[in-house]
């Protein structure tokens, strides 16, 4: 088999709780800003977690000329379209003559929120307290006249991709995966493999999600996975801190344009970075808990590093570890941060404390399925700028989290040789582990 072609990133776009422009949000991340505030989407005042990291002042018309075809799209789909429009623009695709059949799309986008007004009312109308059953006829009588085909269909998790593909003309391989919090990292990794294999020349890859709605918040509150620091929400996202007590819900989208090196060169595109390796594994342990030694996370990181040709326990020619920055999954839950730390040690051995390893979830919150794509983009920005973003709110060290989390202030690595290689982790409920290694493109 001929060796696989290099795959490069040529466009990036995101929609985040700190804004929707790549460079200004990056500056905010380096300054330690927080996107967290009380929930405005619905009345969450009595919810144990009544705050979240919401996208503010979003208007799709700032990103697309004609938004009419997307008028009924779910909020997550609108974020994906805005992120895709930015990536498309940066990649210079408006000028490119693309062969649609060689232009694929792989998203890790989540479902759209329910039509709660009518959904809740139908469920209540159907409930028969005496028999503790649902009367289907009463349920349907309330639901059928009130619910609409648009609102229901737009919740389907493949519809985000349908909108993006229709808007930008993707006719090649098309997938949407839902592997919980690992989804958009997995999407980018699988898109990378599709291109390496030769099934497409260029792809949109990324994801979008919003779970800032009634049952999304409810589900995580019932799991006790979210911080309940109601009186100090601005500091509620505290990955790796001993007082951490859960993640903060965020929302948004991240989208990349990735393509073969040849395809990018032929159309004169600017190369932002190279995707060097991808690893995917399952814990196969428990649906609620992470394998305690981080076995699955270690497997994913090792696969990605092996594919990138990097030996994590050996230093490079400059005496530094060969990975210059790790973007942590770093949710701020007790379990994740402890086990991810152990896994990084398991991979990098004695070099682990020398690799800056931070979590932007301390500022953005957890963008759920969109998190991995946005975090991979921060790795590309780290490569471009030579700075790595901080883990904010890390005030009380945890003896079990004893690596270099870049606490509370961004770090300028330019005098130490800059940032050439980054690794980004994403782990999902049920034991889904995905890792991507990105590298500065050097011709």
């Amino acid at each position: 088999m001929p060796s696989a072609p290099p795959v490069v990133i040529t466009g990036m776009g995101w929609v985040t709780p700190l804004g929707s422009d790549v460079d200004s949000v990056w500056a905010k991340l380096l300054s330690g800003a927080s996107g967290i505030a009380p929930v405005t989407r619905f009345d969450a005042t009595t919810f144990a977690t009544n705050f979240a990291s919401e996208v503010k002042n979003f208007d799709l018309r700032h990103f697309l000329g004609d938004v009419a075809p997307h008028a009924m799209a779910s909020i997550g789909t609108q974020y994906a379209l805005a992120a895709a429009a930015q990536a498309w623009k940066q990649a210079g695709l408006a000028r490119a003559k693309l062969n649609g059949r060689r232009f694929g799309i792989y998203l890790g986008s989540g479902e759209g929120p329910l039509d709660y007004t009518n959904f809740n009312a139908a469920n209540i109308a159907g409930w028969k307290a005496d028999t503790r059953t649902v009367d289907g006829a009463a349920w349907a009588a309330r639901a059928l006249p009130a619910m609409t085909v648009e609102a229901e269909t737009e919740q389907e998790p493949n519809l985000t991709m349908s909108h993006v593909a229709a808007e930008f003309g993707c006719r090649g391989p098309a997938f949407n995966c839902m592997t919980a919090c690992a989804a958009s990292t997995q999407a980018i990794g699988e898109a990378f493999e599709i291109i390496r294999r030769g099934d497409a020349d260029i792809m949109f890859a990324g994801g979008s999600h919003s779970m800032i709605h009634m049952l999304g918040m409810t589900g995580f509150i019932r799991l006790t996975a979210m911080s309940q620091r109601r009186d100090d929400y601005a500091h509620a996202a505290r990955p790796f801190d001993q007082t951490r007590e859960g993640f903060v819900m965020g929302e948004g989208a991240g989208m990349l344009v990735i393509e073969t090196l040849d395809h990018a060169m032929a159309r004169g595109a600017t190369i932002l970075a190279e995707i060097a390796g991808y690893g995917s594994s399952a814990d196969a342990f428990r649906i609620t808990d992470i394998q305690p030694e981080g076995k699955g996370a270690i497997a994913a990181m090792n696969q990605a590093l092996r594919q990138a040709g990097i030996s994590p326990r050996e230093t490079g020619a400059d005496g530094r570890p060969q990975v210059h920055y790790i973007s942590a999954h770093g949710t701020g839950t007790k379990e994740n941060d402890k086990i991810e730390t152990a896994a990084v040690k398991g991979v990098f051995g004695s070099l682990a404390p020398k690799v800056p390893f931070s979590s932007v979830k301390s500022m953005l919150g957890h963008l759920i399925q969109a998190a991995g794509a946005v975090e991979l983009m921060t790795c590309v920005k780290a490569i471009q700028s030579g700075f790595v973003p901080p883990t904010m709110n890390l005030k009380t060290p945890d003896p079990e989290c004893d690596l270099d989390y870049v606490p509370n202030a961004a770090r300028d690595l330019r005098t130490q040789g800059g940032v050439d290689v980054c690794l980004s982790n994403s782990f999902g409920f049920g034991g889904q582990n995905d890792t991507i290694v990105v590298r500065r493109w050097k011709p």
Partner: protein
Amino acid sequence: MSRRVVITGVGAVSALGVGAKALWDGLCAGTCGIAAPTLFDASGFPTKLAGEVKAPDAPPASFSAKDYVPKSYRKAVKVMARDTDLAVAAAKLAIEDAGLITRGSLDGAAGQTTYPGERVGCQIGAGLINAETDELSAALATATNESGQFEYWRWGTIATEKHPAGVGGMNNLQPLWMLKYLPNMLACHVTIIHGCEGPSNTITCAEASVLLSVGEGMRVIQRDAADVCFSGGAESKTNLMGTLRWTLLKHLTPCEANADPASLVKPYDPASKGTILGEGGGMFVIEEASKAAARGAKPYCELAGFGASHSPPPGYEAIRTRSRLSSDEKPHDGIVYAIEAALGDAKVNPSEIDAIVPYASGIAHVDANEAAALRQVFGSRLKDIPLITVVPNTGAAVAGVGGLQLAAGAMAVREQRLPARIHAGSCPSDMQADPVSARAASLRCVLVVTSALGGQNAALVLKKV
């Protein structure tokens, strides 16, 4: 030299029964599994029949995932949605069929698994799982005001200035409630039960989900990231929310509870008023060919080609109007692209395809699009190619439908036999969709193809080994 991939185990669950044999026997006999649903009350909908999974002569409620998980895992069944029940059962049946020993089949007993966990992948196609209305309705009903309307503050638990005491309606949901409904839970339970530590994915592309998942599993094995994958998928939309959505889409043919089930789903009939919802799906053991041969497995067929594409679909008005098809594109082009990619990957010409397993949904505009694509690829030879149709027998199992199509295709290649077709309407003269009995056939290459409401298309080419 590219690694070749074969199917060595098939597990299917459908309205024709539990197990690939039940599906195959039912298809060959021309049985229809559609009936009045027993797991939900369809009386409020215009369509009063559905294809619920059941063993022959047993009620659907008697199907339980408990019978398909190791004893040590039975407690976990209470956090499984029905979609997961179906996938877990199908996976166990496929693994048994392939003769594999997994962590699940050992269930704590001493012994060696056929493959080390890190060489076992799992890719499962799933739908948007509908929350069970019983648990949710009971909880929501506690958070209503005097007029019976839901109020958000009553759902939470924290007393506030405005509301002296939230009543905590949400606490009526079990703590793990959400984990029941995450689409990746089908794959997670399968990986946990059977110890699959390799690449794992969950594809949510509606009707294309299973073929995309199996195609991705094939790629995972080809790129040497695993030697075996448990791939496939399942969905259950035979519930209130699923029926509501497909009613709103006008995908369902109106019918009374006493209608003749076998007369309802009429693939490619332009006058068809819709289909019937089914549930179920298929799971497959796909294996690297030399490893399968070395352990003496008898493959059903080779997975020789895979293709995927997107095209703005004809199925949903809001998307059709935004389709932005260029002037030289047709709505069915995407299906053609997927088929051509799969044929090219398999290095097979259209003239070598001996049978096709299409979606054949009975939804008139979806069928018309599929038929146009098949005509474009196969031309005048289409009338000579037998079609294997499944939906008239099982109902449309949404994300699981590809699993039933692929199971039927794999069985046909192994048995060198074509199953019967049932059809009570009128068929186009250039397509073999009309009623016929099961019969022997020489099947070297079979095409399986489906397309999803959102415009996702997938195709697989199966080759006789």
